[in-house]
């Protein structure tokens, strides 16, 4: 069976053309990147503001409870609701519902990451910054955000995994991307294509996570690398119910 999958993956004919691996891989990346970008523009400032101002923290809880909604159902409902709204020969009938759902699914982990990241900044560091005469905005930009980066990144990484996984399923409402091979392969009993594309999807998710891990190492201040004191403080925070909901932020479907 592994031989068949390998043959499918290495057959040049499978890589070219509009239904080829290259094109669908680019589609997959494009849909995922676009959704993450929209979700980031919404969730990161919002999470930061909620944590900084202490207002509307129910939004984070509400976004978290969204996770109980099966993403498959969200996709189908969005498609049935929206795709008939678009007419003519365009990609919009499946593109719009897919991107909306992918964005909705990326928001909770991003929001939770930004929120808990800024919330859990050492109060002593914040007070010191105030004491040095920094304004609210300066505290936010120079102290809170850099300190929040590790958790912001962990939110971004789980959002990325969630989006890549769901973009695969979105093939069932007509979206392109690598999921199309899985959909067609399962439907037509062409197991080599379905399994080969599954390998590609898994590698894509791994590569994206690895890449973000490298970026995280480059961007996050070396002073924040897990030291004894910091991990101990985080662990204690994990025991509170609020942090428990945010704790392992990588729940996904």
């Amino acid at each position, binding site marked *: 069976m*592994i031989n068949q999958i390998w043959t499918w993956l290495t057959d040049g004919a499978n890589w070219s053309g509009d239904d080829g691996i290259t094109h669908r891989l680019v589609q997959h990346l494009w849909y995922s990147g676009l959704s993450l970008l929209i979700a980031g523009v919404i969730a990161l400032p919002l999470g930061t503001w909620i944590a900084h101002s202490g207002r509307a923290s129910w939004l984070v809880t509400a976004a978290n409870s969204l996770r109980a909604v099966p993403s498959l159902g969200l996709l189908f409902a969005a498609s049935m609701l929206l795709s008939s709204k678009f007419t003519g020969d365009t990609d919009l009938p499946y593109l719009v519902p897919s991107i909306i759902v992918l964005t909705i699914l990326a928001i909770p982990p991003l929001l939770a990451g930004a929120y808990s990241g800024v919330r859990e900044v050492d109060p002593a560091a914040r007070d010191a910054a105030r004491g040095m005469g920094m304004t609210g905005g300066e505290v936010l930009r120079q102290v809170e955000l850099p300190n929040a980066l590790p958790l912001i990144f962990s939110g971004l990484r789980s959002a990325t*995994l969630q989006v890549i996984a769901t973009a695969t399923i979105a093939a069932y409402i007509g979206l392109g991307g690598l999921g199309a091979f899985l959909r067609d392969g399962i439907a037509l009993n062409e197991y080599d294509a379905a399994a080969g594309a*599954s*390998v590609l*999807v898994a590698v894509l998710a791994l590569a994206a996570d690895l890449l973000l891990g490298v970026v995280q190492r480059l961007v996050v201040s070396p002073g924040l690398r897990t030291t004894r004191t910091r991990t101990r403080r985080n662990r204690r925070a994990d025991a509170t119910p609020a942090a428990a909901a945010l704790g392992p932020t990588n*729940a996904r*479907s």
Partner: protein
Amino acid sequence: MDWSYVSDHWSQIMERAWQHTILAGVPLVLGLLIALPLGWLAARVRWLKPPLLGGSGLLYTIPSLALFVLMPVVLGTSIIARVNVIVAMTIYTLALLVRTVADALEAVPNAATQAATAMGYAPARRFLAVDLPLATPVIASGLRVAAVSNVSIVSVASLIGVSNLGIYLTSGYDRQYWTEIWVGLVSCILLAIVFDVIIQVVTRLLTPWQKACVA
């Protein structure tokens, strides 16, 4: 919304809810049972921690539909076998819980473990009677996250033809029939809530000293 559909299909809904419960619940228990020793190892043996946590992190990155499709290659099963879903879900649960268990055990206060040792607890008994109970709230919080995500992911298994509540979603979409979509969505969410409540109740029973603290 066609309410007669719900009453007409009540026994079928219950049957699929039961299938869904098995597909999401059995892996939860299996995953926890495997994660406990692995998490203990990660917390206890310093050099084993990076490979154990890294390895489980890697497993967690694999998208669900891809993992379901790849299970037959690993297990030699047919693609619609339920065991594919059970094993895949166990892998996810395990991947999430190894880190949680390790974190939870490391967070047990040193004073408590040292007091237990001083009172003559042997290592194994100390683990069961002191470390594990004190780590239970944190492990339970991880288990709640895993439970909710399992219930959601299992519905994806309907795409490879394994029967569960997700079938209402796929069939509702194929027939463009809203009632079925609603049945699928609402029943999945209710099942996730049931799992969540059960875990919370069991945690409360296991940690009676926490009653004074928080819900």
